[in-house]
């Protein structure tokens, strides 16, 4: 038997009286309790009796417990997701920051550390592919693709250890990573996921290219004395991380794009000015 408006209003008031403040949960519980009552009144039970039985079914302070459980679940979820999301999203930029610092500092065996850093990025790319390109895999993927293309066509002894152009040999790490990922997944699911994620959130493409920003900043300080470059490197890595943090925290696409754009423009501007100032004043240093 359908409930009357006054009966429904009574249940609504009772839900609020029992301390349910979450509007979305009020809606759920109202409909749920009404359904429980309607099932009983269908069999001839009175509304009052059916209401009592429905509330008893929730247990003592049952409605409040549902709200508490929901709040705890959402808060825990939010904290875990936020921490996890931020850590995962920061990973590529922290590794790239590490690579930058290793390249510029006069460290013994810096080539080894550089190779380890680059290897890590390719491993992350493989893992990202296997997991269906979660959001953190976008800057990683863009980095490994662009750095491979760069190493193919530009002689970079700091990166490759040799003045020779690597040509297609530069693609070997990328090809191996893709091969391992395909061997692991044996399906096109990751690529379908990639397309789906971009369709659902096109800002991921911008986040992908943001992954190459640390490398661009490194290039702007090419051949600059490490003592001069170090504070810029540290400051700019932090700036890049701030841009990535705001991107990951925001749900609005406009803010996501703005955060990356502002961080990129600011960091490139600071890098250009810093580099120009260095070269203008080099003979005075």
């Amino acid at each position, binding site marked *: 038997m*359908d*409930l*009357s*408006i006054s009966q*429904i209003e009574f249940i609504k008031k009772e839900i609020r009286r029992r301390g349910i403040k979450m509007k*979305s*949960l009020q*809606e*759920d*519980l*109202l*409909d*749920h309790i*009404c*359904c*429980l009552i309607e099932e009983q009144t269908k069999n001839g039970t009175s509304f009052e009796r059916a209401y009592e039985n429905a509330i008893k*079914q*929730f*247990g003592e302070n*049952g409605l409040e*417990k*549902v709200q508490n*459980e*929901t709040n*705890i*679940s*959402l808060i825990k*979820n*939010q904290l875990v*997701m936020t921490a996890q999301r931020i850590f995962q999203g920061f990973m590529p930029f922290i590794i790239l920051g590490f690579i930058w610092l290793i390249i510029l500092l006069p460290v013994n065996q810096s080539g080894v550390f550089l190779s380890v850093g680059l290897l890590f990025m390719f491993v992350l790319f493989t893992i990202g592919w296997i997991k*269906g390109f979660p959001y953190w895999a976008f800057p990683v993927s863009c980095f490994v693709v662009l750095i491979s293309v760069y190493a193919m066509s530009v002689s970079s002894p700091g990166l490759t250890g040799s003045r020779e152009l690597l040509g297609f040999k530069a693609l070997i790490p990328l090809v191996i990573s893709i091969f391992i990922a395909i061997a692991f997944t044996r399906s096109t699911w990751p690529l379908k*996921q990639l397309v*789906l994620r971009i369709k*659902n959130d096109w800002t991921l493409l911008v986040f992908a290219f943001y992954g190459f920003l640390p490398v661009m900043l490194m290039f702007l300080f090419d051949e600059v004395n490490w003592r001069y470059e170090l504070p810029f490197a540290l400051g700019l890595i932090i700036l890049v991380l701030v841009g990535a943090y705001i991107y990951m925290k925001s749900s609005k696409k406009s803010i996501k794009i703005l955060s990356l754009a502002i961080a990129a423009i600011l960091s490139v501007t600071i890098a250009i000015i810093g580099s120009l100032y260095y070269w203008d004043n080099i003979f005075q240093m």
Partner: protein
Amino acid sequence: MYSQELIKGTLQTIILKLLSENERMYGYEITRKVKEITKKKINITEGALYPALHKMVANNLLQTETVNIGKRIRKYYSLTNDGTNTAQQKVAEFADFLKTMSGLLNLKPNFQISWI
């Protein structure tokens, strides 16, 4: 009826699977359907269901749609794209888990425990 601990670990999978087979469902409908399919062996309490549904909405696995059904509002839950993908993953993962547990507990094909 199974213990709540057993059900807690599988609740998300149950909800995702149900919603993958039904375009949309409301909370009470989910509890009723599960009771019906499992012949009352699995009883999802409201204290378990609504926190799980709200968490899955927060994680973008589910989306909601409120419909006026006459004298009140009804909130329907349905899968997002992420939810559809996760449903397939979770069900496959659980099927694999059952196989593993079957081997571990030395269960015969009809799931009787073998003490040999």
